[in-house]
């Protein structure tokens, strides 16, 4: 297959793939849905006139939970991964395969019992309730283990001979060498929570903890109009346009994170 054909094919597909996103963007500058090329009466009205106070609160909430997860999840996952990659302890092999099983039983599936636990702990409608269950991610522990197994054992042994403590080894050798991994896990943790809907839908109860994803859900229903009206007059904006604008707002961080993350992904993954 020629290079040109490959190029043409991939461009064609790329266009089709971008289309839904394009539609969403287009709707933010038009009063309602229209055909893709119809940009005749495009304006920034939606962006300028929207009751922003409502959306700002959602963005702040999301930022809090996501940054918390992005900061804590790498620490937890990499430490666990390191233990699997570097230490020999009794039953390690079995534990790791148990872990792979946990990797297979995804957290999302356990939403019902998790919800019961979080509500027993009194964590419903708190940021803690949103973040704690998703912090430990078996998939990320697995990636960490694969990555950390690739670090030269001789370096570690040399440090150990020189009398470095285990913590010192972890901090001065492992961490600097696993920056791509840290970034990768952090980015994954950030976007997983930012893009999540289901868990937050169950845990968050009111405006104090509602995140962007949930706001978008509210907007996707007819009640969306009332939700936005609390923040200020709508000045004739259609629910469709506001919804699309909220979609874009939700997507921007994910796009940015992906743009930055792709480079790190190639460096952080060792399969």
């Amino acid at each position, binding site marked *: *297959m020629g290079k040109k054909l*490959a*190029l043409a*094919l*991939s*461009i064609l*597909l*790329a266009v089709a*793939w*971008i289309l*839904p*996103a394009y*539609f*969403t963007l287009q709707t933010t500058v038009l009063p309602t*849905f229209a055909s893709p090329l119809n940009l005749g009466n495009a304006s920034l009205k939606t962006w300028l006139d929207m009751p922003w106070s409502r959306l700002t609160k959602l963005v702040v909430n999301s930022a809090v939970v996501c940054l918390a997860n992005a900061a804590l999840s790498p620490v*937890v996952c990499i430490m*666990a991964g390191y233990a699997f990659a570097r230490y020999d302890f009794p039953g390690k092999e079995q534990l790791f*395969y148990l872990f*792979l*099983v*946990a*990797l*297979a*039983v*995804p*957290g*999302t*599936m*356990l*939403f*019902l*019992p*998790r919800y*019961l*636990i979080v509500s027993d702990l009194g964590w419903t409608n708190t940021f803690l309730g949103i973040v*704690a*269950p998703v*912090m*430990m991610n*078996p998939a990320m522990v697995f990636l960490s283990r694969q990555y950390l197994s690739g670090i030269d054992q001789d370096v570690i042994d040399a440090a150990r001979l020189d009398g470095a403590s285990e913590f010192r080894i972890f901090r001065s050798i492992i961490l600097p060498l696993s920056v791509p991994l840290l970034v990768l896990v952090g980015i994954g943790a950030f976007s997983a929570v930012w893009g999540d*809907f*289901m868990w937050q839908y169950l845990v968050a109860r009111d405006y104090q903890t509602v995140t962007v*994803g949930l706001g*978008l*859900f509210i907007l*996707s229903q007819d009640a969306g109009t009332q939700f936005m009206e609390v923040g200020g007059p709508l000045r004739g904006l259609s629910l*469709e346009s506001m919804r699309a604008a909220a*979609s*874009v707002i*939700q*997507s921007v961080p*994910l*796009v940015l994170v*992906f*743009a930055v993350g*792709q480079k790190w*992904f*190639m460096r952080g*993954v060792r*399969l």
Partner: protein
Amino acid sequence: MLLLGLFYVLPIAYSLRFSLYDVGLVDDVWVGLDNYRGLFAGKEFWGSVRVTLKFVAAYLFVSMFLSYGLALVLSRLSKRLCGLMLTAYHVPAIFTTLATVTVWRWFYRYPDGGLNAILARVRLPQVAWLGSPVTVTWAIAFAMVGMLVGGPALLYTAAIGQIDSEIIEAARMDGANEWQLIRHIITPLTHRVRLYLLLTTMVAALLVWEHPFFLTGGGPLGASKTIMLNIYHKGFVEGDIGVASAMTVVMALCIVGLAVVMVRRLREYLG
């Protein structure tokens, strides 16, 4: 490890316990295996299994064939272009389900949505894509294809990129044509990724929830009600924690079974 215990092990224990009780507001009544018996005897559960299996088939098709084909095409392009294309293919995955669901709802709308407008132009009858039990699952699955292609394609491309170019050159020298190259060299050398994807896609497909939830709410007549959606309905809408837990347990067991088989295979490759 504590987190792992709290949000992986304990939930399973919770599910097991509740699945054996008729959970009430004040007291839980021991009912033994009645929840399971009711589950397996009822049509509803098997209906949701069937719906979920359709999603498994669709997911596997995408991750095994579509994404791999795409990665093969992309591997012909220069590094820069390849990265650009991968970014484009990732767009639907970056935009969350909710962000694009409005577009899809409009696309499938009966009788004047985007798809039906195209059908009308070529004089074919209009179809209520989301309103008919026959088409609904496939229509939803089709809406998900875009979101599913990017990730696997990225992994495949990374794996193809890691193949020693000398091997490919040598094969070319020996007169291997493109097809033989793909069949006998590239495909076997990317098996590791394929195995990993096989497991993760199957599990992901078992967890389908958001798209049917947003697009149809599981309807019409439960024709798009996946197992996850079924658990949600039973547990949170009908308040039948016992039956919902039983379903969680059954699901977890299936996934663990699947994982054990797959991990055995994966283990051979990881050495």
